[in-house]
């Protein structure tokens, strides 16, 4: 099984014709994916009254993006920044921890034959099939007995498990970390952990970055479990907070702040988009390894 990349230069030399028709077709596709984001940007720049009176896909009378941003960050004593901080906390510890656990476990599955290995495999794979909501209620009840609800741990601990991450590292490690290298290190008397942290991790780097990115996206977007675990708005992540702002527009003492919901949403997307743009190279090769299965 090889993962040799095709030599684009060779192909380029033989197939230089670029199709305009195809490009136009794909442009429609991109329009589909981008129009909502463009809509978000345009409408985040409108004032609350303008939202209702102006056309959806173009700017309103006032360009209020900056004042909206200011309002978003200062509304309710700057709770948005608190939510942002919470999200960062959950992401760093949750995604970081998940990546570490998945990397170690995937490595262990790939490079060691230990009793119970098949059991681990089937159990973890089975876990992927279990609906998250199936576990939400019992996890909530369990955590409440343990006194963990309404604390950051209630959000972080469940996000530490990434079965797909384990699977990705496993598949990646099988190829990327040659067993001969490990044997040689063992001959030299290095402990397994030392080998792991000094040699194997470097070899696993693209896979690790992929898993890190996937878990970062997952923890950044985490909504359902925090929704039921947290009742104190001070611990909300951005997703739950934005939803609360949205439902604030409904009700007896309604204070519609749709413009803040939209601006807040726009601000919430930007870090992830940047992360993806910057780290493109890594996750593409990582996903490659994960998807190739003969």
């Amino acid at each position, binding site marked *: 099984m090889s993962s040799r990349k095709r030599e684009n230069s060779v192909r380029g030399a033989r197939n230089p014709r670029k199709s305009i028709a195809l490009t136009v077709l794909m442009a429609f596709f991109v329009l589909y994916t981008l129009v909502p984001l463009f809509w978000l940007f345009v409408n985040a720049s409108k004032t609350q009254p303008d939202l*209702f009176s102006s056309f959806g896909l173009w700017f309103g009378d006032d360009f209020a993006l900056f004042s909206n941003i200011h309002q978003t960050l200062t509304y309710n004593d700057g709770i948005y920044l608190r939510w942002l901080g919470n999200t960062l906390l959950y992401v760093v510890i949750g995604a970081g921890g998940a990546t570490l656990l998945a990397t170690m476990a995937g490595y262990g599955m790939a490079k060691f034959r230990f009793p119970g290995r098949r059991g681990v495999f089937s159990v973890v794979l089975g876990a992927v099939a279990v609906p998250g909501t199936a576990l939400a209620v019992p996890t909530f*009840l369990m955590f409440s007995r343990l006194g963990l609800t*309404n604390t950051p741990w209630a959000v972080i601990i469940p996000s530490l498990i990434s079965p797909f991450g384990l699977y990705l590292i496993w598949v990646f490690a099988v190829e990327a970390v040659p067993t001969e290298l490990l044997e040689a290190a063992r001959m030299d008397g290095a402990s397994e952990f030392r080998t792991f942290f000094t040699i194997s991790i470097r070899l696993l780097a693209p896979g690790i970055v992929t898993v890190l990115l996937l878990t970062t996206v997952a923890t950044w977007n985490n909504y359902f479990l925090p929704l039921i675990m947290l*009742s104190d708005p001070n611990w909300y992540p951005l997703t739950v907070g934005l939803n609360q702002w949205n439902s604030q*527009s409904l009700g007896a*003492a309604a204070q*519609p702040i749709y413009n803040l919901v939209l601006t807040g949403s726009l601000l919430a997307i930007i870090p992830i988009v940047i992360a993806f743009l910057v780290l493109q190279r890594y996750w593409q090769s990582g996903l490659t390894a994960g998807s190739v299965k003969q």
Partner: protein
Amino acid sequence: MTSTRTTLTRRVSVVATALIIGVALASCASSTSDDGGTDTGTGTSAAALDAALQKGGKLTYWSWTPSAKDQVAAFEKAYPKVDVTLENVGTGNDEYTKLQNAVTAGSGAPDVAQIEYFAMPQFALSDALLDISPYGAAELKAKYTESTWNHVAIGGKIYGLPQDSGPMAMFYNAKVFKKYGIEVPKTWAEYITAAKKLHAADSKKFIAADTGDAGFTTSMIWQAGGHPFAVDGTKATINVADAGTKKWADSWNQLVDGGLLSTIPAWSDAWYKGLSDGTISTLVTGAWMPGVFEGSVAKASGDWAVAPMPTYDGTPVTAENGGGAQAVLKQTKEPALATAFLRWLNSDPASLKVFTESGGFPSTVAELKDPAFVGAESKYFGGQKINEVLTAAAGEVAPNWSYLPFQVYANSIFNDNVGQSYEKKEDLNKGLAAWQTALVTYGNAQGFKVNS
């Protein structure tokens, strides 16, 4: 070295297994609800409340009323040592879901929470609320109207203090009525005629907006003389085919099936806009609405007026819609301080003044009878003395109404059942029957003996 490592990993796995089993067992063991309410230190009495206020502390208060912010500010000014954090975690059922979760979880509940009257039995029954009678709450009984007090005094205990009441009236857009030459309806038949006339004159205007609201429906059934819910201990009766319920459903059917009701969802931004620009020209709801008008429909100031609720045969009768109390949660770590805050909130004249000034409709007898209150001219309602209509309505509430001990749940599945009638423009009686079936099933599953 080999043996140590193997032993180590083996030990780790043993510990891990033990941990898992331990956690599972701990969770499985039935836990009695934590009784955080007893305050052994300062004792319980009215004096203890004053002492707590002097000592100070921190409280969390969940409420969505427009007046909450000002009331909290006034309280903190009067008692600087107490710090109250006001949170609006949602209106109605949204807040109740969070509250119920916190009660189940054993933590995360506020010290004091706003709970509408229909939801009081459910929370009282699930042992979530603190009984405040040890603090001398019974002495406050005389301050409140009988019907509101009955909502907080359940089973010999006192679970909260009433804040407002919601006798119903009809708020109507006088400007729109005048423009289209519509008479203020006194009966439901006249109301339906007015609906047809208005909609025919301008197809963008509706007499009212309704997409199915449990609170509205139960209140309308109440006014029509229906008694679909009856509870006696652990026996419950649910019957939506009784005369009063049918009277309402058959009458309202004409509006639903005739497409005479706007489908703008209540309390949404578009709904406020509709109230503002005449799209929705009447609102039959509780007396607490003026505060919301002033706060959220400012543009229509001067357009609206208040009239008594239409009736079926012309005899004045109303029902209650909404209105609620505040209660102390059993989970609170500051029972005395929380009760003291509650007492101030709903019985101290300073608080009541703030409340009525921000448009709240009181539940206290003194305020309801106060000539200044009754005769107050409302700038928003074109100078009309709206409280004359509203206090009169308070005295005309139909008697003997009861909610289910699981009314919060009942309301949460209202749209699944009755909502379908609205959606398909079908007979409301059918939707109500489906609702009844679901509620009977639920009640029996909860251990009640329903309709047996």
